């Protein structure tokens, strides 16, 4: 049976406020609460809440036959908890139905996989734990930020205990191959991969309301007929997209919700089922290896990482950020660790992109220009760097510091142990004393 595999991405960064040079060293709060709340609540009202309701209806109506998957970044979860907790409740209900899978990703929606393997490991672990606490299921499928993937990342993920990943079905990687099969990583045969079907995914999230598209209007009937007409050996159709597609990128007046509601009925008529990434990867054997020596992602026509590290500004900012990773991980200050996570969101670097300068690339950017974004980010980062340095003296290098911290920690344990011992000795002495006086 052919199956459709839906996965929706939810992510919102903690946008930075206007942070001037004069703020450095005096103001340690970096985020634009007003904008973050405003944007999140708007999107929740337009997209997340109605889409959750619709999906829950579909899941309930189709009794276990309609399935979807979500990946919600940790920073988005935090914002939802603060500004729109009803969305989290919606996800919880979906989770309870048993037909919804949650994937794991980097907590900060960060680019750590490209710069800082240890940070990558920590964030994935942190995120998986968070998902388990919130939704009661342990994620088994890894979705890296923006579907960024390469052979190296596959090995890294495998070493972390993951055997299932999803990524982009990039044309230059696939060549003549079809994305509608399960593959495995070239360097690690046990790492199974699900690839996004770009054409069908983009039909929904980009072209759905495009009047000049020759297939407009897209109906559920037409869409399922395309899938049914593919060769019978092609089994999984991976529709990966931003959750905002439902209601925000494609506003409700375009009929996107009606399309989704109609989809299961027409699919079942043609013998097409629904599945989740975890299930699809378990139920199919890999047909062959996928070789990805150069990093890919789901962004732009090039499907590479140039949207985040394409220019000098982005490279320089990322370098300054991850250079201090090791030191930050030695710090125990809670606010510092939070800020460290928030500052890693890939969006901050996306705003600095000059790729489509003048081409309206910055539709999500709160800044006037990429240069503006860079200045603001670097000012924040300078302040953050100062705070990190204030934790431990600069003159001690990381290795030495680590050793010192371990010694301090051990000494603390030792002191505790000795205190305990002392207590028992004193206690027994007292007992002896009491006994003596009794005598």
């Amino acid at each position, binding site marked *: 049976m052919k199956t459709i595999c839906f996965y929706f991405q939810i992510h919102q960064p903690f946008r930075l406020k206007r942070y001037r*040079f004069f703020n450095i060293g005096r103001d340690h709060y970096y985020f634009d609460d007003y904008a973050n709340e405003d944007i999140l609540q708007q999107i929740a009202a337009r997209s997340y809440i109605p889409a959750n309701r619709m999906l829950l209806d579909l899941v309930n109506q189709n009794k276990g036959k309609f399935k979807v998957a979500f990946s919600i970044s940790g920073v988005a979860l935090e914002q939802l908890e603060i500004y729109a907790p009803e969305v989290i409740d919606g996800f919880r209900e979906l989770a309870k139905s048993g037909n919804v899978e949650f994937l794991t990703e980097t907590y900060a929606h960060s680019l750590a996989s490209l710069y800082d393997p240890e940070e990558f490991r920590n964030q994935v672990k942190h995120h998986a734990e968070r998902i388990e606490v919130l939704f009661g299921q342990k994620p088994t499928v890894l979705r890296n930020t923006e579907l960024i993937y390469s052979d190296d990342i596959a090995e890294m993920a495998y070493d972390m205990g993951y055997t299932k990943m999803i990524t982009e079905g990039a044309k230059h990687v696939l060549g003549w191959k079809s994305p509608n099969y399960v593959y495995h990583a070239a360097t690690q045969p046990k790492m199974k991969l699900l690839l996004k079907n770009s054409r069908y995914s983009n039909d929904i999230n980009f072209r759905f309301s495009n009047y000049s598209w020759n297939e407009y209007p897209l109906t559920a009937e037409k869409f399922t007929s395309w899938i049914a007409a593919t060769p019978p050996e092609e089994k999984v159709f991976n529709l990966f997209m931003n959750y905002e597609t439902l209601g925000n990128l494609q506003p409700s007046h375009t009929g996107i919700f009606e399309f989704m509601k109609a989809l299961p009925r027409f699919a079942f008529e043609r013998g097409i089922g629904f599945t989740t990434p975890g299930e699809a990867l378990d139920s199919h054997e890999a047909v062959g290896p996928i070789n990805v020596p150069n990093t890919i992602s789901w962004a732009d026509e090039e499907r590479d990482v140039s949207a985040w590290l394409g220019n000098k500004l982005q490279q320089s900012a990322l370098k300054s950020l991850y250079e201090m990773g090791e030191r930050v991980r030695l710090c125990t200050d809670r606010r510092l660790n939070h800020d460290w996570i928030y500052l890693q969101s890939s969006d901050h670097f996306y705003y600095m992109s000059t790729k489509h300068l003048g081409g309206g690339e910055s539709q999500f950017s709160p800044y006037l220009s990429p240069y503006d974004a860079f200045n603001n980010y670097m000012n924040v980062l300078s302040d953050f760097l100062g705070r990190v340095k204030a934790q431990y003296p600069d003159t001690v290098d990381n290795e030495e510091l680590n050793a010192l911290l371990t010694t301090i920690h051990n000494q603390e344990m030792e002191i505790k142990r000795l205190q305990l011992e002392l207590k028992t000795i004193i206690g027994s002495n007292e007992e002896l004393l009491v006994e003596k006086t009794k005598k």
Partner: protein
Amino acid sequence: MFGWEFPPHILGGLGTASYGLTKGMAQQEDMEILFVIPKPWGDEEQSFMKIIGSSNTPIVWRDVPWEMAQARLVKYMDPQEYYWMRDNIYADFSYMNTNDLGCIEFSGRYPNNILEETNNYSIVAGVIARTYQFDVIHSHDWLTYPAGLHAKSVSGKPMVIHVHATEFDRSGGKPNPIVYGIEKDGMDHCDHIICVSNLTRRTVIDNYHQPEWKVTTVHNAVDPLRPEIEAIERISGVSEKVVTFLGRITMQKGPEFFVDAATQVIRKTDHIRFVMAGSGDMMDQMIRLVAERGIADKFHFTGFLRGKQVYEMLKSSDVYVMPSVSEPFGISPLEAMQCNVPSIISYQSGCSEILHNVIKTDYWDVDAMADAIYSICTYPAMAEHLKVEGKIEVDNILWEDAGKKVRNIYNNLL
């Protein structure tokens, strides 16, 4: 006087210099000044002189009732003057684009159609020159030369040109021929030329072929700080020393040399931060350069600063650097010194002719600049000396004296 900018709505140093000079000259008892600008905003200080806005000067006769003139113009001038000027319209300009008062709209900035705006300005000057009585015409920079020449031909009064900058400074030696033409025409037909530095005087003599006797240097000065500015405290929160570049980020100001020097210093030490304040056509390029050098966590951009922000920046600085490639005068180091900030300036700046308690280097000598930055930030004695002596020195550079020199030139012409 014909000027283009006037505080508080200034875009560059021209406005500050025009204001200072006028104020200095107004201290002479028998001096009365009429200052023409393209577009008044109504909040200019008029206590020591009178401002006439070109955008309020009619060039087409319109039947305007008194109430309307009063409502629209009282913010800028006595409405009666509008009617006086209306009686002096000298030709039929009804083909031109004018508003309901018969006036041309001016942007008062440096728009793309700047040549059209300077031409309109000289049309208006004809009306003003016929309306008012005066003894000398004084034109500030090329934008106002055609207006000055027009006024001269109408009134027959002597005309003085004040060169704050030449096209050679602005363009880095590749002048726009039209602008050069306007400048040359003005210089050839005026009666005397005042330059803000010997450097500029040399340019005028060599590149505009003016006779030496016709060109005099009158150095700029600086207005004493107002008490509310004096009271601003240092607000930067960083523990490091702050080295500042403040000005338009453009070729003429040599921003890339500042970045070069900063790179050298940052690689050697840890206790110095750099700030590039201002905006300009090379700003994005400089941000890229800073990112490429990998010093962006110690090198900051503030964007355009206005009014009080400029002084907040200066008061938060430990060193001020002006590596201008070609600066006719450059008032900003004087302002920095007023704020007790040691300054490093290039020999290629006009102000280096009169300043002594500053460090001077060639603009291209990045090593020397880095060296000077390092020593001021590292050796307190050096910084202290420049601070104290610099303040004393700059407090003695007064517009009043500059005004007297200008007066002498006037006297010779009358």
